[in-house]
């Protein structure tokens, strides 16, 4: 895998030259140790997106970094989808045949991939059993779990756990997402890239052009939720909240998602959403194709309020994106959202459709308060949830793994 070129200096206007210099100093002291990232897909999905941005920066810092992607057939990925659902607590029967296939595909990949590096980072459960192929005494292996495994189906977790404990360390996105393990566990928050198409600055002209293309008139405040059409994102609840707001305040609603085309459940949810909208011309339901980053960027930037009314959520990177764009956010207090939305400071946390309506109305009526939340949110994301923070944390972890048991590490 060879992601496109990006240089750390490109981020200096955002995080400042001092922060860039500090990252370079941290990297220089790793003295060229080789890094290998392994996941299950090169494009699509949050992990591929993250690696596509992170790896060029690691290379720019002089750290030899490779990216390997495991291969597996459709049956294998059906097994890993079942495992993924089980980790989220969905009852799943993982048969002996499914387990065998999971391990066989890992063994095949171990035979064909070059897994030799000083630090090997395995992302998510799909390539987890590769650790069986580690050469004795060579390199350190870290399992980076992007999934919330706090309430898994126990049988499936026990099966995976046998592999997790063979790693030198594990990394989770938040303490709440982890499990008790006998190996050290670290926390690295997910991150967004401010220079990516989905987050880069846009001119007003560009934003207006996208709105025109999508058939949205900018003649009244836009309230937006960006999420795939999934019941756990509660799009029908967002419509209910919007209808409550419309009793007293003028606005329009955009529900922008994707993935319905190849997801039977997504199709059903999209139908439910259309029924709930009941032909309201001010509710725009956009089933966007993959890679609609420019459209999503423009929609978020054009919004007076961004909503994320999830019933369950992972870290919630759509919230991070909205905060980065200085949008006032109204979001459910679930998953990783409270780590980003500090109530009354960087956004507003809610627990119901009524609460969502109340807070949207407040923000539409008080633009100064909305602006203050947006500014705060932007600054908060700048320090904690950008690719550059992610990079710094990976460098710190690489150093920490070289000094096991030490809590204060002095670098020369």
């Amino acid at each position, binding site marked *: 895998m060879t992601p496109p070129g990006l240089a750390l200096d490109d981020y200096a206007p955002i995080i*400042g030259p*001092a*922060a860039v*210099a*500090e990252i370079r*100093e*941290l990297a220089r*002291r790793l003295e060229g140790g080789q890094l290998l990232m392994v996941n299950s897909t090169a494009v699509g999905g949050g992990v591929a997106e993250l690696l596509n941005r992170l790896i060029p920066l690691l290379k720019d810092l002089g750290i030899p970094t490779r990216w390997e992607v495991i291969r597996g057939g459709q049956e294998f990925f059906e097994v890993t989808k079942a495992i993924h659902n089980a980790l989220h607590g969905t009852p799943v029967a993982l048969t002996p045949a499914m387990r065998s296939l999971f391990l066989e595909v890992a063994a095949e990949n171990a035979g064909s991939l070059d897994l030799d590096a000083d630090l090997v980072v395995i992302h998510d459960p799909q390539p987890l059993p590769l650790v069986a192929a580690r050469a004795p005494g060579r390199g350190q292996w870290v399992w980076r779990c992007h999934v919330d495994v706090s309430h898994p189906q126990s049988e499936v977790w026990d099966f995976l756990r046998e592999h997790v404990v063979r790693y030198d360390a594990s990394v*989770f996105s938040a*303490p*709440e997402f*982890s499990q*008790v*393990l006998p190996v*050290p*566990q*670290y*926390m*690295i928050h997910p991150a967004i890239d401010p220079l990516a198409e989905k987050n880069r600055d846009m001119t007003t002209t560009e934003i207006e052009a996208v709105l025109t293309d999508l058939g949205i008139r900018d003649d009244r405040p836009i309230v937006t939720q960006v999420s795939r059409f999934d019941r756990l994102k509660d799009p029908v609840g967002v419509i209910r909240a919007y209808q409550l707001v419309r009793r007293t305040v003028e606005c329009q609603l955009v529900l922008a998602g994707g993935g319905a085309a190849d997801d039977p459940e997504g199709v059903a949810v999209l139908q439910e959403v259309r029924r709930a909208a009941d032909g309201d011309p001010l509710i725009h339901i956009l089933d966007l194709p993959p890679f609609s980053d420019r459209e999503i960027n423009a929609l978020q930037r054009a919004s007076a309020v961004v909503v994320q009314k999830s019933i369950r959520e992972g870290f919630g990177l759509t919230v991070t994106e909205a905060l980065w764009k200085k949008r006032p956010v109204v979001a459910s207090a679930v998953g990783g959202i409270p780590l980003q939305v*500090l109530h*009354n*400071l960087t956004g507003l946390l809610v627990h119901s459709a009524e609460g969502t309506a109340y807070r949207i109305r407040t923000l539409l009526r008080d633009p100064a308060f909305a602006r203050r939340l947006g500014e*705060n949110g932007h*600054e*908060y994301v700048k*320090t*904690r949830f950008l690719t550059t923070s992610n990079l*710094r*944390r990976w*460098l*710190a*972890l690489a*150093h*920490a793994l070289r000094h096991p048991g*030490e*809590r*204060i*590490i*002095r*670098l*020369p």
Partner: protein
Amino acid sequence: MELKAREPFVFYSTAHIIELTGRSARSLPELRSGIAEVTGSSIFHHTFGALQDRFFAAQRFTSDFARWAVEVLQDWAVAERLALMHPTEFPSIRALRERILQVIDDRLCEGQPPAPAPPGREFHFSQAISLIYPAGYAAATLVELRDGIRRASDRTLFFHLIEARLRIGRCTTDLSCWLSDELGAPHLADRLDRLDFFVPSTEDLRQQVLASLEDAP
């Protein structure tokens, strides 16, 4: 004539990685047990770690213990007492830990403890692994020191003014030590030691430090 130090003051920067301990607390007594047993690194991280970026220090408590006590246990009294701890008050993390335990013990002796946290709102203990490395510049005179303070990052200021004192066990701040021992300016060291670090932003802190280093006789 400008004073010149025998040894230059080397500016350092830090990076942190957070390690999860796997330990959590659902109630004030469980929080107390955890505080008594976790590492000093964990105590420091939860008490003063947030001073590194100073977000919203005026609007919310910077101590994780205090914030959890008010946001989850809804016990304002213990939260306020936990919040009012200043890095300069404590010669060591041991002393800091003892003070925190005393505050919780006093609260538990006062009567009924607050209701436990609902599921999913537990306090998760973690600890910061600190990497400390030269930032690439140094000062041999007061003028150079001021220049260094002006260019220092949030992390550099946090390290020299807060972390070095408690985690590395320096006498006061390591800046004060240098002013006193190497530059022969104990009055400036004394002034620096009396600063209040609970200011709204890093820029405010920087200006305070620079002001304390002015008007040298």
